[in-house]
C-alpha cells in the first residue's frame, strides 16, 4: 500500500546525539508526513551535488502532524557527513516510500524483534500499535535507547546485550526463543528489522518453529523508487526491488534475504 511520495527541501530543526549509538535528526514538513506508517522510509540527499552521489535511505522514526524524526547511526561516509549538519541547514528529502509493516495479523501475539537501525521503525510501530513484545538487541549498555525514547511504547520491552551489561547476555534471538517457549510458537507473529545477520537468524528461528512474520530488509539502495533495480531481493516471483515491493516482506515471500 504505497502512498504518494514528495521530494522536498527541509530545514533541520535538530541533529544531535542521543546516546553512544544514535543521532536524532528532526525537520518539519507537511508533505513528507502524509500517510506515513511505521516501516515507510525516506531518501535523503546529504551532499549538495556529487558527494556523496546517491541519496541514503532512512526509516521514519516519528511522524506527527508536521514534524518528522529520523534516528540514525553513523555507519559510513554518508551518515558521517549527515552527523555534521547543523540546525538550520537544508537537506533534500523524498518520502514516504515503500510499504509499511502490517497492522492486521492472523496470530494472537505480536513480537517485534529489533536491532541497530531497525530499532527506530519498530519503536515507531510499537508507539502506534499495541504489541506484545518489543525485543531489542544491542552490543552493550551504552547503545541502549534512552528510557524517554521508549516511554510511549505499548509493548513489553526486553533487552539483550552481547556483553551482558544490560538485560539478557547474548543475541536477541535468545529473547525470542524465551518468548516462543512462553507464548507458544502457534500464537506468535514476528515483525523484525535490523542488521541482515540478525534478521537472518530471526527468520531461521521462525522457519524452525513455523512462525509467520515480516522482515524489513536492509539493502543498499540507489534510487528508492523502483527504477535502478539495485536493491533486489530474491522472492518466489524472482528478483524484485526492495524499495517498491518491500522493504517489508512476508517471510513466506523471501527466497534469499541476502547478507
Amino acid at each position, binding site marked *: 500500500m504505497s502512498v*504518494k*511520495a514528495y*521530494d522536498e527541501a527541509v530545514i533541520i530543526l535538530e541533529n544531535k546525539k542521543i546516546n553512544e549509538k544514535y543521532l536524532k535528526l528532526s525537520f518539519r514538513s507537511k508533505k513528507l508526513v502524509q500517510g506515513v506508517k511505521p516501516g515507510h522510509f525516506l531518501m535523503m*540527499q546529504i551532499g549538495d*551535488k*556529487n*558527494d*556523496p*552521489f*546517491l*541519496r541514503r535511505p532512512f526509516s521514519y522514526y516519528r511522524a506527527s502532524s508536521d514534524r518528522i524524526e529520523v534516528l540514525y547511526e553513523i555507519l559510513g561516509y554518508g551518515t558521517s557527513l549527515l552527523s555534521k549538519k547543523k540546525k538550520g541547514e537544508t537537506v*533534500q528529502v*523524498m518520502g514516504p516510500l515503500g510499504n509499511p509493516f502490517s497492522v492486521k495479523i492472523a496470530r494472537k501475539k505480536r513480537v517485534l524483534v529489533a536491532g541497530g537501525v531497525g530499532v527506530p521503525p519498530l519503536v515507531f510501530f510499537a508507539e502506534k500499535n499495541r504489541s506484545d513484545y518489543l525485543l531489542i538487541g544491542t552490543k552493550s549498555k551504552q547503545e541502549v535507547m534512552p528510557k524517554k525514547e521508549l516511554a510511549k511504547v505499548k509493548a513489553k520491552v526486553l533487552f539483550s546485550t552481547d556483553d551482558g551489561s544490560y538485560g539478557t547476555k547474548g543475541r536477541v534471538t535468545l529473547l525470542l526463543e524465551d518468548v516462543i517457549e512462553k507464548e507458544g510458537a502457534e500464537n506468535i507473529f514476528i515483525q523484525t528489522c535490523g542488521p541482515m545477520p540478525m534478521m537472518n537468524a530471526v527468520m531461521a528461528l521462525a522457519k524452525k518453529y513455523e512462525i509467520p512474520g515480516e522482515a524489513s530488509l536492509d*539493502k*543498499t539502495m*540507489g*534510487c528508492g*523508487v*523502483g*527504477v*535502478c*533495480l*539495485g*536493491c*533486489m531481493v530474491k522472492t518466489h516471483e*524472482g*528478483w524484485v526491488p526492495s524499495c517498491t515491493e518491500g522493504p517489508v516482506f512476508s517471510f513466506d515471500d523471501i527466497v534469499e534475504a*541476502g547478507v
Partner: protein
Amino acid sequence: MKKTAAKKVDLTTKIKNLTFKNPVTVASGTFGTTTEMESFIDYDKLGAVIAKTVTLYARPGNPMPRICETASGMINAIGLQNKGLDEFLENKMPKIRKQKTPWVISIAAETTEEFSVMAKKLDAVKKDFAMLEVNLSCPNVEKGGASFVKKQETIIDIIKAIRDQTDMVMMAKLSPELGDVIEIAGNALRHGADGLSLINTLRGMVVDVYKRRSRIARDSGGLSGPAIKPVALRYVYDCKKAFNCPIIASGGIRDWKDAVEFLIVGADLLAVGTSNFVTPNATMQIITGIESFCREQGIQKLDDLRGTFQSAQSLGCK
C-alpha cells in the same frame, strides 16, 4: 554575446522526420519501462522517453550486490533484468500507447538472429514508437551486450539484420568499451543506423579492502554519473564532427549546464541517466534551465545554439 530579451524559446528538436518539443529525454534503464516516475515528473513535458532495454527472452538479472556508489557516480551490474519482449508488448504497451510523449524502445540481444526477430516484432507496432535504440554496449551481461558485439563485422551484421526488418528510426548505442568509437559509429551509420546514442557506461570496479573483493557481485560493472561526463562529451563532439548525424547524448548530465555543454558540441537529444536516481525531477529542472539560459543569452531557437562549439582550430590556435 548579444543579449536581447526573447519571450519564448523554441526548444524544438528534429531528428529525421521526427519532431520533439524539447531535447530532454531519459537514458535507458534509469526511468523504468512505462510511467514509474509519474509521482515526480510530468511525462508530457519530456521531449521523449527511452524505456529500459528489452531483450527477446526474459532475463532474471545479476546476483547482488549490483550497485555501488563511487566518486561522482556509481557502478551498476544489473544485467538487463526484464521480462522479455512479448511480455513488454502485451503488458507494457497499453500504458505506453496512452502517453502523448514520444517513446523510444531500447533493445539488446545475445545473437544477430535475436536482434532480427525483435526488429520484426517491433516493426508490427512501429507507430507506437518514435525510435528504436539498439543497445550494443551493455557491459553487464555474459552474452550479448558489449561482450558479443566487439567484432566490427558483428556490429555491421546486427545493424543490417535490423534494417532488413524495419524502417524505424534507428539509433546505435555505443561505448568506448567496444573499441574505436569513430570506426564503429561509421560502420553502424553506413549499414543502416540513422544516428548514435553516446555513451553507455564505462567498465569499472571498486574493491572492499577488508574483504579483498569487489563491492559488485560480478567484480566489475558500468560506471555512470557525472564522473563520465567529460568522456561522453568528447565522444559526442568527435562523432558529430565526423558524421554530422543525429546523436542522443548521455553520460553524467546532472543539470542544465551539463545539458547545454552537450548541445554546444552538437547533441540532438539529451538523455538524463543516473541523475534521475538522485533527483527524480532532474529532467524537469533541466528543461527549465535550458530555457532560462537561452532567454538570458538571447537565443530564440535551440538550433541557434546547437553545434556552435568553437574549436581551438576554428579560433586559430595552433
